[in-house]
Every structure is written in structure tokens, then in C-alpha cells.
């Protein structure tokens, strides 16, 4: 792999690090796919009792709705917004196109999340930009390319380091473009609160506030030994340099995935062990699907359990060798759950959150003879089982995405979310895992028949007669669908029985890819 090295920030002749940040990304994709919501407040996030906002459109932000605000509070602030479940498959499809545009610019692209990435222009194949004007030209051209291909706006910041580029992209959001000239870094940093610096969280900010430091300018008054005394050698020294705009972090493409995880916050505390086991089984299966689709295996399984009083406990177990065997991971997750739950519920009853993660990733799987034996035993009784299970309808709706809506952003980055079609995979996996534990989603058992299936606000659907649309609301056995799509004008609504056989869920990723295709081939 001959990647051009990222030049040290202090030797850059031009502000050639770009930070590209899509504006209100999830909400913007929703507004684009749902024309009736354009120009209106849209909130994407966990819609349940304990959901938090993932993204609010700028119209909703005017009411004070921000990321990470509890959805219940957002509803009071902005009752008229559309509250939608995230459609990660759609965001992923759009993100893939944006990241591709960035890679066409320079091989050094570091995705931070689905909607955010750094690009090092010093590695451009046709030569690095020599001055700020060239950087500005490249950034503006990039913004218009993103707008053309996706119909969405991005804010771009440029500077001599990742720190400055990120500060700059934030400066004129949305639809902004700010390039900080070489030598002008401190003018931009000085007025910022210390929290704007990379790595400064509530704990560090709190310590600094106690000694009267609130802004970067005030921070720069402190000597390095002051900071080292306050925060320790490594972090103190690092912060001393960051305050001076010295950020040596290189733009690193494809940071290797260290772990893959999934977690759910439950609308009501899980109280009995059977429900917890079913939930952790579902999480483990989800994680294994993602592990496999990334071509990985893993060695360490971690389970996280958060009790009603927010006591959070993690337990992990390391296999003798890496695996991608769903059975092994599920078994380990249940063992760990049984260990973690008593600790998490020591002083209050009920579990509000469960998570399962796999780390120690590898690209090979040690065969397991306990699992092999189980396979042999299953093969023996397969004929019988097949005769009995033959009636399976496989009609479970794609619940996978909705379930992840409550998870914290996972460290796997843009590839971490379930691939399109994960819902179908879920149904298949449940079929395979046989008699273990009944599968549940956030909302109860996986519906096996139409009458029991759930429609989620924002979900893509198709009606046999009236065509594609999205679920505007559902409840008491009814579902309201607005018939419109990315390429239509605002559409009309129709209300149906929730078990209407004419109504089918659509894959959000496919809807998004179709919209991107029609944009590319001008009609």
C-alpha cells in the first residue's frame, strides 16, 4: 500500500486539510425523500419514551431542538414537527456517494461518521494546492458536486490541521465554506469555548472552568507545566499544543475497525430474564450479521447492561480463537448477561439498555467442534424439522433498522450500520437459530403475521394500487401513508388497516439508491 504520507501540519504551505460535514444530514435526507416535509421541522431519532434526537432539521432547530435532546422534550418544544424513525439504509446509500466524491478528489479521506469526513488535499493526484485560493476553489467545486449528485448541502472547512478544518466547517453552517489561511489559525481558535478543542469533554472543561478558563484564548495563557500539572503529562501536553493550533493528527483513511457493536434503549424497562435474554439474543445476532458482512471474525464478546438508575455494567468474555459463529456469540452474550444483570440491578429493578459488542477482530475463524457437533445433530433431525417448519411465511417486516435507531453512533463508522436488506437477514437468522429464544424487537416479538406487524413513522412502503409512499403515522390497527417520493411533488395521504395485504414495506436503501440514480440521469 503506497499511500502518500500526510504532511506535518506545521509544514503545510496551504490550508489543505478539508472537513466536510453534511448539513442536518438525516433530516435533510428525509426532507428530500418526503417532499411534503421540505421547509418544515423534521426530527429524526428515537421516537419511543426514552428516545433521543439524532438529527433535527434547521426548521426544528429554530425551536431549540438539538441532537441528543430527549425526544419527549423535543415534542414539547416543537409539537408540530414530523417525528421520524431513522432510515439508516437510506443515509448509508447517500453517504456512500458523498464519500466516493471525496475519494475522487484525494486518496486520503478519513470518514468520521456517515455525514462527516476529513480530506487531505496535499495528497491530490494532480498535485497539492499551493495557496488558499486554490483550496477555496476546490472546496466550492466539491460542494456543488455534492449538491448536484445528492441534492443536499454540505459545509466545508479548510485549514492546516484537522482541528482547524473542523472549527472552520462549523463556522458558517449550513451551506457554508470557510478556509482559514495559514497563520490565521489562532484568530479562529481564540474566541471558541475550550469544548471546541478535540478531546475536551465535560470533565476537562469542568477542571478548566474551575481555574477560570473558558475560551481557547484563556487556555493559551497557561504554561505547559500548568496544564501537565492539571491534566497529566500526555493530555496536558496535547492540550497545550492544540490551544496553539498545533494538531499533528494525520488524515488517516479507513481507520481499521476495532469493534462492532449494537445497543438498544427500551421504551419500558425490561424486567424478566426471558425478555432480557431474548433482547440480548437479538442484539448478538445483529452484531454477528454486521461482523460477517464486514468480512470479520472476533474474539471478545462484551455485554453492556444499564439498570433503571443508570448503573451501567459491562462484562466480557474472550474466546480461545476468533469466530463469526452466531451460536457461540449468542451463548456467550447470554452468559455475560446473566452475570451483568444482577450488578446493574443491584439497587433498582429493571434494565433500560442492553448492548452487545464484538472486538478482537480478525479475518479468520477457528472452527469450533461444539458448534460442528450441533450442526451434525441438527442435520440428523433436519428432515423432521423441515416438515414442521415448512409453513413458515417469512413475512416479518424489516425491523432491523428501526431497532438501531436508539443506538449510540458506533465506532465502526459508515460501514457499521446494517447493510440494506438486514431486515430480511434477520428473519432468516431467526429461522435458523431454531428453538433458542423467541426473537423480539423493541416493540415485542417479531411479528410473524400481517395482523401483528408494526409500521414505523418514516418507513418506506408501497401500496399495490397507489404506489410508493411513507408511513406518516400508525396506531390502533390503522396506518396512514403519504404517497410521494423523492421525485414527486408533495403527495396525498391514505389510511389503511395495518394488516392491509396491499401494503408492503420497501427497503429504504433501495429507495435512496433509486433517487440517486434518477438524479444522475437527467430526465
Amino acid at each position, binding site marked *: 500500500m503506497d499511500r502518500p504520507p500526510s504532511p506535518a501540519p506545521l509544514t503545510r504551505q496551504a490550508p489543505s486539510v478539508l472537513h466536510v460535514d453534511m448539513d442536518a444530514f438525516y433530516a435533510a435526507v428525509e426532507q428530500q425523500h418526503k417532499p411534503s416535509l421540505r421547509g418544515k421541522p423534521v426530527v429524526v431519532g428515537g421516537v419511543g419514551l426514552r428516545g433521543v434526537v439524532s438529527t433535527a432539521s434547521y426548521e426544528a432547530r429554530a425551536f431549540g431542538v438539538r441532537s441528543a435532546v430527549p425526544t419527549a422534550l423535543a415534542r414539547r418544544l416543537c409539537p408540530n414537527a414530523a417525528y421520524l424513525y431513522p432510515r439508516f439504509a437510506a443515509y448509508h446509500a447517500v453517504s456512500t456517494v458523498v464519500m466516493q466524491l471525496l475519494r475522487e478528489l484525494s486518496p486520503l479521506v478519513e470518514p468520521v461518521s456517515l455525514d462527516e469526513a476529513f480530506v487531505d488535499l496535499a495528497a491530490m493526484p494532480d498535485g497539492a494546492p499551493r495557496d488558499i485560493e486554490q483550496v477555496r476553489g476546490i472546496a466550492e467545486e466539491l460542494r456543488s458536486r455534492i449538491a448536484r449528485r445528492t441534492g443536499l448541502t454540505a459545509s466545508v472547512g479548510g485549514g492546516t490541521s484537522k482541528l482547524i478544518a473542523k472549527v472552520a466547517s462549523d463556522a458558517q453552517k449550513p451551506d457554508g465554506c470557510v478556509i482559514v489561511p495559514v497563520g490565521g489559525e489562532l484568530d479562529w481558535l481564540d474566541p471558541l469555548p475550550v469544548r471546541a478543542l478535540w478531546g475536551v469533554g465535560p470533565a476537562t472543561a469542568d477542571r478548566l472552568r474551575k481555574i477560570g478558563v473558558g475560551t481557547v484564548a484563556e487556555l493559551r495563557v497557561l504554561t505547559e507545566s500548568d496544564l501537565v500539572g492539571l491534566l497529566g503529562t500526555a493530555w496536558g501536553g496535547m492540550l497545550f499544543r492544540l490551544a496553539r493550533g498545533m494538531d499533528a493528527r494525520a488524515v488517516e483513511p479507513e481507520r481499521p475497525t476495532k469493534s462492532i457493536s449494537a445497543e438498544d434503549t427500551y421504551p419500558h424497562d425490561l424486567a424478566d430474564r426471558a425478555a432480557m435474554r431474548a433482547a440480548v439474543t437479538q442484539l448478538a445476532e445483529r452484531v454477528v450479521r454486521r461482523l460477517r458482512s464486514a468480512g470479520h471474525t472476533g474474539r471478545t464478546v462484551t455485554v453492556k447492561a444499564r439498570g433503571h438508575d443508570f448503573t451501567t455494567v459491562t462484562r466480557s468474555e474472550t474466546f480461545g*480463537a476468533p469466530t463469526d459463529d452466531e451460536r457461540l456469540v449468542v451463548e456467550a452474550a447470554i452468559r455475560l448477561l446473566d452475570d451483568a444483570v444482577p450488578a446493574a440491578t443491584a439497587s433498582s429493578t429493571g434494565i433500560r439498555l442492553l448492548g452487545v459488542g464484538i472486538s478482537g477482530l480478525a479475518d*479468520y475463524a*477457528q472452527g469450533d467442534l461444539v458448534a460442528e*457437533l450441533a450442526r*451434525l445433530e441438527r442435520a440428523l433431525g433436519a428432515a423432521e424439522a423441515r416438515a414442521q417448519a415448512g409453513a413458515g411465511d417469512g413475512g416479518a417486516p424489516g425491523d432491523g433498522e428501526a431497532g438501531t435507531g436508539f443506538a449510540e453512533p458506533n465506532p465502526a463508522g459508515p460501514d457499521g450500520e446494517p447493510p440494506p436488506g438486514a431486515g430480511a437477514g434477520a428473519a432468516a437468522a431467526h429461522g435458523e437459530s431454531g428453538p433458542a429464544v423467541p426473537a423480539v424487537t423493541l416493540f415485542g416479538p417479531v411479528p410473524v403475521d400481517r395482523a401483528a406487524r408494526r409500521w414505523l413513522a418514516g418507513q418506506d412502503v408501497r401500496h399495490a394500487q397507489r404506489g410508493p409512499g411513507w408511513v406518516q403515522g400508525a396506531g390502533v390497527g390503522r396506518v396512514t401513508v403519504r404517497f410521494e417520493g423523492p421525485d414527486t411533488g408533495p403527495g396525498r395521504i391514505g389510511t389503511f388497516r395495518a394488516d392491509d395485504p396491499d401494503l408492503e414495506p420497501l427497503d429504504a436503501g433501495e429507495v435512496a439508491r433509486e433517487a440517486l440514480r434518477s438524479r444522475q440521469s437527467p430526465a
Partner: protein
Amino acid sequence: MKFRVERDVLADAVAWTARSLPARPPAPVLAGLLLRAESGQLTVSGFDYEVSARSEVSTEIEQEGTALVSGKLLAEITRSLPNRPVEITTEGSKVTLVCGTSRFTLQTMPVDDYPALPQMPGASGAIAGNTFANAVSQVAVAAGKDDTLPFLTGVRIEINGDTLRLAATDRYRLAVREILWKPERADAEAVALVPAKTLYDIAKSLTSGEWVTIALSGEDGAVGEGLIGFEAGGRRTTTRLLEGEFIKYNALFPSEYTGAAVIETAPLIEAVKRVALVAERNTPIRLNFSAGQVTLEAGSGDEAQASETMDAVFDEEDISVAFNPGYLLEGLGAIDAPFAQLSYTTSTKPAVLTGRPAVDADHDPAYRYLIMPIRLSG
């Protein structure tokens, strides 16, 4: 209590018994060794509620009695004594040990607090000490060290008439050894799951006598239920059995193999060790078989790589199988034969190592080491 005993006899008995003492005793008395002088016999016993050990030697007893002293200290002292007769006497709450010009005074612990050692189950049969130790070491190598699933840390013992079968697995490989022994009854039948490490230590320490008696209670409610006992040359030890079912491992052995390769064991071990130098943290080693040869490969494009080709008796279709090099080496070491036969079905199904006394001799199925291959993704 007062008795005289030869230094070597005492040191051996104490060292053997002290082996089973717990490193962190759950109660202070369990750090002790119980000395009992009675009817011309000195008995040294230790117990930690899991494992008990008792060693008997003949002595000149002047005054019968018992004393409980620190086992670790007594073992260290007896090991370093000069080769002279040792005289041990209790005086009040102390024990005095005199050997030549050396004199030690040890505190004793209350004998009444010491638990009674479990009773040995009735004898099931006997086997030559060395044969047993070898068989156990061949099998224990495959047992797991992680006690998440207790049955993986045990050796399964199956008694079926004159056949004694040992099996162990850590879920990645499985070793099975069959040996003939002398059962007490021709129709003897019993199964037990014994902690592998304990069994290995016991078998190794009982090779001095010619025969080892194995005692396993066949039915529920019999003396020594839940225990297995071993006895050889005045030494007896019991250990608690592990609970839980062992896997039904017979089904894992393929009924038919696609093919087999035969390779000289010692050079193969050397080659695997060399090639595995680039296989960090037991990343896979690949065995690529083609007509008359096998090529070993390890490492990846991003890091160091190694390969080595050697002769093999092989005339099937080319096949490539990957293994954890550590598991492969332990299996090759355990077959204890000049030639190794690797039988396989596909590159992801269990492969089986057996030994051959010569390249053209039949393989010896009395010991089988089954190993799960590594599947390479991408």
C-alpha cells in the same frame, strides 16, 4: 507423638502430599499437612475439599500421635535436610524436628479443626503407572484452560470392560486415547469427568509404583460418589469430579475421509515451528498439499511471510487446510510416532491426526487428535 524416619522417605512423602495443597487455602487449617504416627506407619495427609492426598510410610514409632503443621514449610524443610535420620516429636503445641545437627521447631494447628478426608471409592481396576501417565498427557493437552464451560477443562474417563478410554477437548481440538487395563470385573462400566490439570499431575506423580489402581464408584449412593481415587505404592489421592455432560464426541469423527497425507513427524514439527514464527498470536498456518509434497505457509501480505515445502505421501486432489499452529504442534507432539497421518474430508471439516510407526505401516487408531481447521475469510 514421637517417631524416626529416613530423610528421603519423609521428604518424598511430604513433597508428594504437599503438591495438592492449595496456594490460597480457603481456611488456615487447609494449609496444613496432617502427620499421624500409628501402628508402625506414618501417614501424611493433605486436603483442600477438592483434592485429597495421603501417603503412608513405615517408621519406627516411639509414641503414637498426630500433629497438623504448615505443609509448605514442612516440605521446604524436609527437602533441604541433610541425608540423616529425622526425629519428629510433639511438645505441647509445638513440633520439633531434629536431623543431624539441624533442629526446627514448628507451630502446630488444632487437629480437631481439620476435616476428615473423603473415603476412597471401591477399586475399579488397575493399569501400569507409566502407560497411564503417557495416556493422560496425550489427552490432557487438548483440554481447555478457561473454565467458562467446566466440561471443557476436564478429561472424560470411560471404562468399558477391559478398555479404558480418555477424551478431552477445548472445543477447538479433541484428543481420544484408548488403552487396555485390568478391570476388577470383566463387565465394568463407568464414566467420569476429572479436572484435566489435577489428573495430569496425579498421573505423573504416580509412576513410581508399577500399578495404579483407579477407584470410581459405579453407581449412585455408593462410597465415594462424585469422586475418583488413585492409589499406587502407599500413596492414594482423590479428586472431586466435574459436573456436567461431556460432548458426544464420536459423531465428530467423519465416517469416511476424502484423503490422507503421511509426513515424517519430527521434520514436520521443526518446519511448523519455523514457519509459525511469522504467525503472530496464533494466526493460521496453511498446509497446501499437492502430489508428493506439502507446503506450509504463514503470515500475510501486510506483514512477514514464511513458507517451506517438504515431502509427503499424498496422491489425492490438491487441498489447502489452515490450522492454529499451536494446536497443530501439540497434536504432532502428542501422537508420539515417527510418522503423522492427517486425514481430512474438506478444508472446513474436522481433520484427524494419528501416528504411524513407519511410513508404510498402518496408522494406530488408539490415539486420535481431532483438530478443527481455521476458515479464512476474504
